[in-house]
């Protein structure tokens, strides 16, 4: 029986704008197994960001409305929980990093202030949960290695030994121990000389640095689930490679489950263990990363892989996908991809393929929401 960080069942989300309803997400089910990275890939408007933001209930609920489905996290259905209870679950439960850190880091606060807030939240939580009594923790020895092991840093309780809960809550942000914690987290994300950036504002940092600070903030609470919504799309190519390398290293060391959203197939290939492909609000294919990229079972996935340009002019014209993304207020009947599909059949126009459902088993089998999945292999 797989252990899941989060389990999404039949989730449907609509946006109500003016007189219309956009069906942003339609009947999506997927699981994020503990300690694994699940990637969601799709083009603009496929609903992946909506899905990502719905899990920690960060969608603005008046225009968005969760029509049906469940999000099971730690045994609770997050759809049914009242919004005011959600902050307690964010942070150590579900943490999120976004595409443009200039928007998600508060521009009015320095780096130190933002990180220390995360550290203090965790302190409070741990102070509240701890059994009374002092506990020894060895001082950190920087002479031995430049970068601390992630597991050690994150699992070490941030509350100093010997302090009572009340005293800890009064700790001012300039307390030297808090400062050391913050510096440790910054070193964790491979920022050399973190002292230099403590007093800077987000706009004074480069894009790559900002994203590292975001990752530090997200991981500092050791969440059970980390949702990364296009975390490197706004970064330059070499900086993106650095940040992805950092994330790969951290994934190795920290056993957080990750839901990684991206429109870039290359990034997903590098990061994910399992991949889900979304189109027009539906999950059309799901499977282990190597299988999905080597032998896709849905025409859209195959077309997407072929559309990524990798050739020279002299090799002939580029492949592209005819048509364009459907209007989600009135999606096509039947299979939503059928107007652009290279192998459309009459049944596709009328009968939507059954939505993908996770099945029990040690690893998710490779599933595809296509009536003719077995024919996809023979497409050029």
């Amino acid at each position: 029986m797989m252990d899941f960080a989060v389990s999404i069942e039949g989730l449907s989300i609509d946006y109500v704008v003016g007189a219309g309803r956009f069906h942003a997400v339609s009947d999506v089910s997927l699981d994020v197994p503990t300690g694994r990275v699940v990637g969601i890939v799709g083009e603009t408007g496929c609903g992946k960001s909506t899905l990502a933001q719905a899990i920690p209930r960060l969608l603005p609920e008046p225009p968005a409305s969760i029509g049906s489905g469940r999000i099971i996290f730690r045994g609770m259905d997050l759809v049914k929980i009242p919004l005011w209870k959600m902050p307690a679950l964010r942070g150590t439960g579900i943490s999120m990093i976004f595409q443009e850190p200039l928007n998600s880091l508060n521009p009015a606060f320095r780096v130190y202030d933002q990180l220390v807030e995360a550290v203090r939240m965790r302190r409070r939580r741990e102070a509240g949960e701890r059994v009374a009594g002092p506990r020894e923790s060895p001082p950190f020895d920087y002479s031995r290695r430049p970068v601390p092991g992630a597991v050690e840093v994150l699992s070490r309780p941030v509350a100093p030994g010997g302090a009572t809960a009340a005293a800890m809550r009064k700790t001012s942000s300039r307390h030297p121990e808090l400062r050391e914690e913050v510096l440790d987290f910054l070193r964790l994300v491979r920022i050399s000389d973190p002292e230099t950036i403590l007093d800077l504002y987000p706009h004074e940092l480069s894009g790559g640095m900002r994203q590292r600070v975001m990752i530090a903030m997200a991981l500092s609470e050791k969440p059970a689930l980390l949702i990364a919504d296009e975390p490197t799309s706004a970064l330059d190519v070499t900086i993106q490679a650095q940040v992805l390398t950092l994330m790969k290293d951290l994934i190795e060391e920290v056993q957080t489950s990750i839901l990684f959203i991206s429109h870039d197939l290359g990034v997903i290939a590098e990061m994910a263990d399992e991949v889900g492909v979304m189109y027009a609000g539906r999950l059309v294919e799901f499977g282990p990363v190597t299988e999905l990229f080597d032998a896709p079972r849905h025409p859209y996935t195959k077309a997407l892989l072929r559309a990524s340009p990798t050739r020279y002019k002299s090799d002939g014209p580029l492949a592209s996908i005819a048509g364009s993304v459907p209007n989600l207020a009135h999606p096509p009947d039947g299979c939503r991809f059928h107007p652009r599909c290279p192998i459309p059949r009459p049944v596709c126009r009328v009968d939507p393929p059954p939505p993908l459902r996770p099945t029990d088993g040690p690893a998710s089998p490779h599933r595809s929401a296509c009536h003719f999945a077995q024919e996809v292999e023979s497409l050029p």
Partner: protein
Amino acid sequence: MSSPPLIEVVDLEKHFPLTRTATEYLQGRPRRSIHAVDGVSLSMRAGETLGLIGESGSGKTTLGWLVARLHEPTAGALRFGGAEVGTLEGTELRHWRRNVQVVFQDPVGSLDPRLKVWQIVGEPVRAQDQTDRQILRRERRHLRRENARRPKGEPARLLPPMPPRLNRAAVRARVREILPTVGLLEDCLDQYPHEFSGGGRQRLSLARALIVRPKMVVLDEPTSALDVAVQGQILNRLVELQRETGIAYLLITHNVAAVRYVADRVAVMYLGQIVEVGPVHDVLERPIHPYTKALLAAVPVADARRRRSRFRIGGDVPSLIDPPSGCRFAPRCPFAVDRCRDENPSLREIPGAPAQLVACHRAEEVRAVAPASLLEAVPQRGDAPAPATS
């Protein structure tokens, strides 16, 4: 070399001055500036595509705008068809603009939301017509004055006639002509930009650029705001158009795949300077400059076997304000030696690769290093990335 190159740029510089703070002013420090383009020399032939790749802060967009005379160079020569255009202004500049047009990056912001398609796409036609009339009027005035001064008996010189005004119908006809070449239907003349998708808007921008039949189009990140599926359509169309009309492109992008497909030659920019330039196949398959190698290694590839790779080039792009002396990539270069930090290398030919120009002191030694070696195949725990010494 029978005819001069279409575009020739010699030691071009564009510095944007920064306002001095009060303390700097009082201390008498010289004004600092952003060295967006710092000594670039380049040339393009008619009908070819030059790809300009680089990351943010490389100066590629500024260089593109300079070539289109949307900026005035602070130093250096900018020549079009042999003639100096860096100092053009006023009516002459506006008249020259019909030779080089621009397609901008942002498909939403490039089109005036309050105007209809025919007005947007037809604008360059009307503007050039206005400019023509202005020049003609000047000529006629001049001739009239000369005629008034002529000695008796000499016949008056004929004034060139003013052409009929370009009216709505004429503009609409021109727009109707150009739309099919970018793949749009002729009946969308009265629609507004927001009724089009991102790909459609880029086509409109392209139509607007092509309607005056320029010799060159500067394409600034034409595919960045588009989905992968649509990118292919636009890139295909660009290549077809070039085959049909012989137009030249300056393709500015950070998307290496787009350059690979469309470009004939490619130039790699870093921090305001060109570090490598050559035929696209040579530069992308056998890059010589360490930065080019790093750039190519960093591009994510849709291959699941890449999951074990770790990118080993650290550091951020330094600031364009008062750049360091010496090679600008030296702080991040895994092959840097002392000479690199002292002396800024200039573009030179490398024996064995005559078509490529590289700005690297150690080009001969590092040329054999493949980009893949900048990626580590084995995951490492805990250590900061260590620079390779080759």
